[in-house]
């Protein structure tokens, strides 16, 4: 970890894109359920896609790149959670106004500006993750602020868009996706790149997540959260650049805890690449772009990769990278070398990877003799590196072209890329595709613009409960900043608000029960999914002195189904509170027998006696 000045000194810039799924009942542009639990696949379709020219004529570099990969996509279709709209066989239905309202609520929470009319757009995606080859997306707000302590980080834009589909598998040239989650409304919050350190990025991500969870729709005295919770429902993309480097986007971080690690590693990667560039130039390195067919030299070779390719009629191509010796093997991130980057590019043509001369070539069963022959054929001396690719001719030459491109970039720049998580533990990433530009946007001509009148927006704001109010209220009524903070970020917050809205003066007990007791029960496998009114009943009994604090957890353990069920459980398990005169008698009796009254009574009636009351009584008698 470095201090803030360090990041300033390297020209660190960082911005966040937080994607959070909304919990509306229906998808954004159709009436399919957003909850696919228990749903089943009823069939699949296979599609191909190609890049088309964006609205302003230019073909976006990321889309033309994807479409140069000749792949087919299989979409698994679900019974309840997908329909013809999701599989691009029916025009979109009307926009889900609940999702629009939720988006406006968040926009107001960030104090952002709202356009008078929201224009649904198509964002071209050709990685196949959407059967329509675009994602519907709309800008709902811009120019907001995220307050972190005293600092305000500008929120440049807030989007409402469709979730993409989930990848199931990639095999050869076929990618399979599940389309159950496609079209679920997603809110995207983008900060500007002024985040000043990896730690601040993590802090900002946490704060945005909290704000999304705590801003809710007013319903009686509580607020209904409009975001989904659980694995995969919130994702962080981070944009990182340093001086001399470039903007790189790391996509789909799910663990907020490792956001800073990924950023630190990306800084390191760019620093190393800048260093490599400098040293390559010093060495007069060169990439002439020629590749040579080495099939003849390797036709009797025994190594698996080469043999696999040749047995299917494929070829081996090689290329010399002049002056590159030693650089391909240079580590630029934990377990990632420049060679891994070159290999990632080659893989986009559908090959399994590359072999390069900075590797231990013995593991490919390439003898010194064979390596000599290869070097000779390529005209590569000991200062030079070489790369080999084995596959069918078409993929092979495509892959080689990509690989050579990447090698050439090593002498010129840190390439602007979208990168994906390679290893979540190590915090390293791999190349996914070139960074998209703005020309992949065009209007969604199938759906109407959404006019947001000021009356409508005011009504939405009026119906909103904001994070600050909720946290302030918690801090006040719990009078314990630590528990208040825990409660604020807990999934049980709504339940807490419901109960404390109906039973007065028990806030701390309710919070402690929900945060500790209920979680403890859930961890030991006991379902504490009680009806919220049953919870109210239990806490009412407590507040009226019918049961003790200790008995609350005990009752919950029996999972009562209703208020009368609570009554039954209390009776049959003798959980009624013993207090007042009855407790006094007990103390007197215990004393008479010469026992330690406190211990004697608590050991027998732990669940029935309030420790404080007992202590009071014993103290009285002293």
């Amino acid at each position, binding site marked *: 970890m470095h201090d803030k000045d360090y990041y300033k000194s390297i020209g660190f810039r960082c911005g966040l894109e937080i994607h959070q799924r909304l919990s509306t009942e229906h998808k954004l542009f159709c009436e399919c359920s957003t909850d696919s639990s228990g749903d089943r696949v009823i069939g699949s379709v296979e599609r191909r896609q190609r890049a088309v020219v964006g609205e302003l004529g230019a073909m976006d570099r990321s889309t033309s790149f994807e479409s140069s990969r000749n792949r087919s996509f299989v979409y698994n279709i679900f019974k309840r959670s997908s329909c013809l709209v999701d599989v691009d066989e029916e025009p979109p239905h009307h926009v889900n106004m609940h999702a629009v309202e939720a988006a406006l609520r968040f926009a107001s929470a960030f104090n952002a500006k709202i356009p008078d009319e929201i224009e649904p757009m198509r964002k071209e995606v050709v990685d196949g993750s959407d059967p329509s080859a675009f994602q519907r997306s709309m800008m709902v707000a811009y120019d907001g602020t995220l307050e972190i302590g005293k600092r305000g980080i500008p929120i440049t834009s807030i989007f409402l868009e469709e979730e993409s589909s989930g990848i199931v598998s990639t095999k050869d040239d076929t990618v399979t996706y599940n389309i159950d989650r496609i079209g679920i409304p997603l809110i995207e919050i983008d900060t500007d790149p002024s985040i000043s350190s990896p730690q601040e990025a993590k802090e900002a991500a946490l704060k945005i997540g909290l704000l999304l969870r705590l801003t809710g729709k007013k319903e009686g005295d509580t607020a209904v959260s409009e975001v989904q919770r659980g694995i995969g429902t919130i994702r962080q993309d981070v944009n990182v650049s340093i001086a001399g480097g470039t903007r790189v986007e790391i996509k789909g971080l799910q663990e907020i805890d490792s956001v800073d690690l990924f950023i630190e590693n990306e800084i390191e990667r760019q620093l190393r690449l800048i260093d490599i560039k400098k040293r390559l130039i010093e060495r007069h390195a060169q990439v002439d772009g020629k590749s040579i067919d080495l099939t003849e030299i390797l036709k009797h070779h025994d190594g698996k990769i080469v043999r696999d390719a040749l047995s299917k009629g494929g070829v081996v191509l090689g290329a010399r990278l002049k002056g590159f010796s030693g650089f391909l093997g240079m580590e630029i991130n934990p377990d990632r070398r420049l060679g891994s980057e070159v290999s990632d590019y080659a893989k986009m043509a559908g090959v399994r990877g590359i072999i390069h001369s900075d590797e231990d070539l013995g593991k490919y069963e390439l003898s010194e003799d064979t390596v000599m022959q290869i070097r000779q054929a390529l005209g590569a001396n000991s200062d030079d590196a070489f790369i080999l690719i084995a596959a069918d001719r078409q993929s092979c030459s495509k892959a080689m072209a990509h690989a050579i491109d990447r090698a050439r970039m090593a002498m010129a720049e840190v390439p602007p890329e979208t990168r994906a998580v390679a290893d979540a533990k190590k915090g390293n990433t791999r190349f996914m595709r070139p960074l998209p530009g703005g*020309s992949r946007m065009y209007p969604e001509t199938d759906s109407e613009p959404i006019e947001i009148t000021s009356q409508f927006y005011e009504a939405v704001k009026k119906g909103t409960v904001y994070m600050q109010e909720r946290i302030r209220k918690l801090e006040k009524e719990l009078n314990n900043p630590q528990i208040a903070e825990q409660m604020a970020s807990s999934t049980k917050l709504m339940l807490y608000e419901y109960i404390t809205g109906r039973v007065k003066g028990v806030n701390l007990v309710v919070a402690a029960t929900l945060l500790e007791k209920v979680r403890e029960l859930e961890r030991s496998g006991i379902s504490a999914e009680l009806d919220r009114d049953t919870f109210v009943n239990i806490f009412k009994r407590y507040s009226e002195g019918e049961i003790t604090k200790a008995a609350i957890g005990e009752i919950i353990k029996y999972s009562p189904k209703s208020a009368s069920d609570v009554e039954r459980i209390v009776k049959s398990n003798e959980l009624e509170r013993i207090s007042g005169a009855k407790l006094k008698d007990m103390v007197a009796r215990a004393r008479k027998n010469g026992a330690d009254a406190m211990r004697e009574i608590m050991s027998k009636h732990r669940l029935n006696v309030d420790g404080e009351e007992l202590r009071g009584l014993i103290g009285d008698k002293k």
Partner: protein
Amino acid sequence: MYSKELQEVFSRLGIKVGDTILIRSDSDLQQGILMPRTEAGGSDIIVIKRKDGYNIGIKYSNSIKVEKVSESTSHNFSFPKKESRPNPSLGKMAMIYTGGTIGSKVDYVSGGVYMLTKPEELLHDVPELDQIANIEINELMSVASEDMSYHAWIKMAEATAKALNNGAKGVVITHGTDTMHYTSAALSFMLKDLNAPVVMTGSQRSSDRGSSDAFMNLICSAQMAMKSDVAEVGICMHGSSSDNTNIFIRGTKARKMHTSRRDAFKPINNLPICSVDQKGKITYLSDYRKVSEGHKQKVSAQIGYEPKVALVKAYPNSDPEIIEYYLSKGYKGLIIEGTGLGHVPSQTEKKEYSWLSNVKKATDSGMIIGATSQCLYGRVSGTVYRNLRLLEDAGAIHCEDMLPEVAYVKLGFLLGNYGKEKARDMLNKDIAGEITHRTEFDFPTE
């Protein structure tokens, strides 16, 4: 469309769609490219495209100031191109554009729809075509298929005949999908002595989306036109929702059976003639008329057509007066889309709902009336029930397993070329594959 007031503001400031503008208000400042408004009705909301690619709408009012920042750089809109080089080893293919979603693209700056009229524009989008044929494009018309009339059919028949007589090995006609099956029927009847594949195709998803079916439909259709030996008119579109194979359906047996799916076109009362994939693999599935080698006769377009022909539907409570109406308007033929085996309401409780006397009156005065079924699948009959016989006695002709739309097109064709007597005779006789004499049991293939 922008409101009149806004249009005036723009013109006063010399602002055109595509220009970069600045919009100032008390609390906001937005810069972007002025976008067209595609919605009908005047709007006072200005749509601009921001630098990040998103469009937003800002309401125009007196408190807002609009300024022009810079001129559009792309006033002369053109599509990207790929050079086409004639390949002597490939045959000649004619591609006739008639309009519709396929073959046209939207210029999002001006909002205009343009057709890809040059081979090099089409090849940029579908470079695979270069490997299949040397393509000559004929930009015949640009009409949405729902707006077409029989004049369009005649133009297409003439253009097709001309292309084939000029040495094209096959013809691909791109067409809007809504009424493509009417056109395919018309061309099936009109093209006499046809000795080459005439392949109609369209798309259900516009070609400005990466998932468009246009690309595969064009490739498969070109393969069909150049590699098959089918001497018929047919429709070549997706065989399923997947981008695997297309099917080629006889022009007189095809029908659009879905509003939006890729595989909307189905053969009715028939199998597809064949399936075809993008690599040109053709699998024949039923009998068809073959290209004959020794055939010397030139193809001709039989372009007579009688437009005073109508298609009416019989249904519960339907008013038979409709026949009276057409009679009074001088109509010469009528196809009834009847219920079941070809029924119309006949012995109704209330006499005014029975069609029989109106049918009889019309046929007596010389109108030709054909009976088909709204079931679409299956054959009509003139004998099974008493009501069917009554209808025949009234002078109606039951049209076997011919589709209502096909019977409708055929009747206009017959009246336009052969006169009343012959037309009456030919209506229920097969001339272009529209009637099959035996219906094979078909098992679901999916």
